């Protein structure tokens, strides 16, 4: 990577950022869509950070053991769903705060991931195949940037499907009703518990797949530091995206690009302030929240029952 980017010099930075929007954006995309689904039903899941780590570990381990990365992706989804089941059940008990459960699930989920992932730090697991759109180019950097993962394409497809699901299907209506006005949902004869359970579990399934994107696509390895807060940023990202799946897609790409800034500058030899550039996504999230939130009005698009006890 280093020698090729020297060849194209400064051009490497925008290129790496564009590549980063797709590569680094993929986990964001899955986690934020999962969180969007969860929050639409009126519950917050802060524990997706733990889910992401567990998903990354499960994907890597299963891919290594079975030699099939796609089985790994599936395993990541189910591992995430299992954690989601704990969260969905516990956070719906009376007087139990869903934010606190999320924090506990971050600790528990990362514990599970590191505990079972320990033996898999060394070995190299087979990675997901990529679709190489950059074959025509002579620049290896451009080729690397245009390696598109099928996971990214799947995420790209899920966003509009989820928007359509919320807008035009019966089940989508149930979820929105439970999230906006549990009373009305109860009057419709919908089981609030079951709908929220489904939303949290399905959302965690998606977040688990986001973890698979980390360990099987980019950066494509399993270490204990593979997720550095992406699961938490997804919560902020959903607020930024106004609980709209399509907006989640654009926001994920933006965050993926911000994340690529630090490594991109490092690859062209700017070592000064490398760690500070790594903080770019967090600072960006904070700034976005500062500018989009207001104490005077509730945000447009926020599910009515979000963060309440009902």
């Amino acid at each position, binding site marked *: 990577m280093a020698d090729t980017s020297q060849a194209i010099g400064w051009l490497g930075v925008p290129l790496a950022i564009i590549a980063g929007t797709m590569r680094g954006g993929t986990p964001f995309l899955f986690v934020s869509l999962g969180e969007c689904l969860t929050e639409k039903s009126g519950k917050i899941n*802060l524990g997706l950070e733990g889910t992401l780590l567990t998903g990354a570990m499960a994907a890597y381990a299963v891919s290594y053991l079975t030699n099939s990365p796609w089985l790994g992706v599936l395993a990541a989804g189910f591992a995430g769903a299992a954690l989601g089941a*704990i969260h969905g059940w*516990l956070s719906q*008990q*009376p*007087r*139990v*705060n869903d*934010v*606190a*459960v999320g*924090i*506990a*699930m*971050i*600790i*528990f*989920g*990362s*514990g*599970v*991931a*590191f*505990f079972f992932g*320990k033996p898999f730090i060394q070995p190299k697991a087979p990675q997901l195949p990529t679709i190489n759109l950059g074959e025509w180019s002579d620049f290896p950097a451009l080729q690397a940037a245009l390696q598109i993962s099928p996971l990214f394409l799947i995420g790209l497809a899920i966003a509009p499907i989820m928007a359509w699901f919320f807008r035009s299907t019966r089940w989508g209506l149930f979820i929105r009703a439970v999230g906006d006005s549990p009373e009305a949902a109860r009057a419709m004869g919908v089981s609030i518990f079951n709908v929220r359970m489904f939303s949290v579990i399905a959302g965690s399934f998606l977040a688990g797949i986001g973890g698979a994107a980390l360990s099987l696509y980019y950066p494509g390895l399993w270490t204990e530091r593979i997720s*550095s*807060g992406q699961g*938490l*940023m997804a*919560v*902020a990202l959903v*607020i930024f995206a106004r609980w709209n799946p399509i907006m989640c897609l654009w926001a994920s790409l933006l965050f993926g690009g911000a994340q690529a800034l630090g490594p991109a500058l490092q690859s062209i030899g700017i070592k*000064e*302030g*490398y*760690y*500070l550039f*790594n*903080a770019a996504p*967090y*600072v960006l*999230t*904070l700034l976005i*929240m*500062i500018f989009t*939130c*207001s*104490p*005077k009005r509730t945000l447009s698009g926020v599910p009515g029952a979000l963060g309440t006890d009902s």
Partner: protein
Amino acid sequence: MALSQSWRRTLESLCLSFGAILAGILLFGVFCALAGTNPFAVYGSIWKAAFGTWSTFQNTLVRAAPLMLSALCTALPARLGLVIIGNEGALVVGGLAAVSMGLAMGTAFPPFIVQVGMAIAGMIMGGIWIGAAGWLRHYRGVNETISSLLLNYVAIALLNHLVGGPLRDPSSLNKPSTFPLAEVNMLGSIPGTRVHWGLLYGLIACIIAYFLMQRTTFGFAARTAGGNIRAAKIAGLPVGKLTVMICFLAGTCAGLAGMVEVAAVQGAANESLNVGYGYGGILVAFAARHNPLAAVLISLLVGGILASGGILQRAHGLPDATVLIFQGLVFLMVLYSDSLYGKFGVFKEKPIMIEPPAPPPPSPGQEPVMTV
């Protein structure tokens, strides 16, 4: 009457807290059994490593000190109804500020003055860090949980930047660190022990926090605002100032924890600053139900869990993440126990025993009319 009611309520919350911790320990045993180790041997090892002998108990105390301080960072704002989890970030910036101050003052001043300077620097920096989250919450409506979490990552990036560049000691090769503090400026040990004075800081901070929240008008105002923010505003309480003040105080505690870690344990700032006192402190605060005095006891317990990480690895071949799973299970159980309030009849106030007047015995032929 009122006394007995509050007594029963205290007993209920004590029993539920301890029951939850016990249940967490049991679940952890089940987990160990599933992972293929003997849970009783693991319990034995943890007990020995955490509380078994005076020598090992001192290790627990050393770890309990920053936990107490870090727990206050979550417990104080919780009284205002805020969930702040920026403990780790405030601890890291507090440690950084303390080191910078300690290095800047060097040996030009008496050690005591330097220590006070380091403590104040750490506290102010930590206070600003969490105070900012409180300010954003009140004046910009930014969710304090998320903003404090993001600030954690910003703090860690700042730490990596400073120990990797401007403040780096070139002789620290394997583990980038800042230049070490002068030996004389380090916090010493309490005489007769290996436990540093930070433990005393933690104890005093918890006691002050308790009295501040429970026995002063300031604490009363904060609790009122936490109970019903609209009522507090109507009553004329300066909710915004209260929020920023409480968050600032919370941050000073975590910043002091960072100073203690730097000036008593590490001797320099490096990545060991974020080794889990942040999340541990959150667990302590929730398990103590945000009561600063209870936090002292729970800190000992969690400190013991942290202290046993090494032996779990050496004696049982369990990875160090086992400690995380243990903490997570206890945390989940503590949260679950919140839903059990009022479920046990033992803790319920007995209905007032006034014998209802006995119905007059029905005279024959005059059976009571059953109304349907």
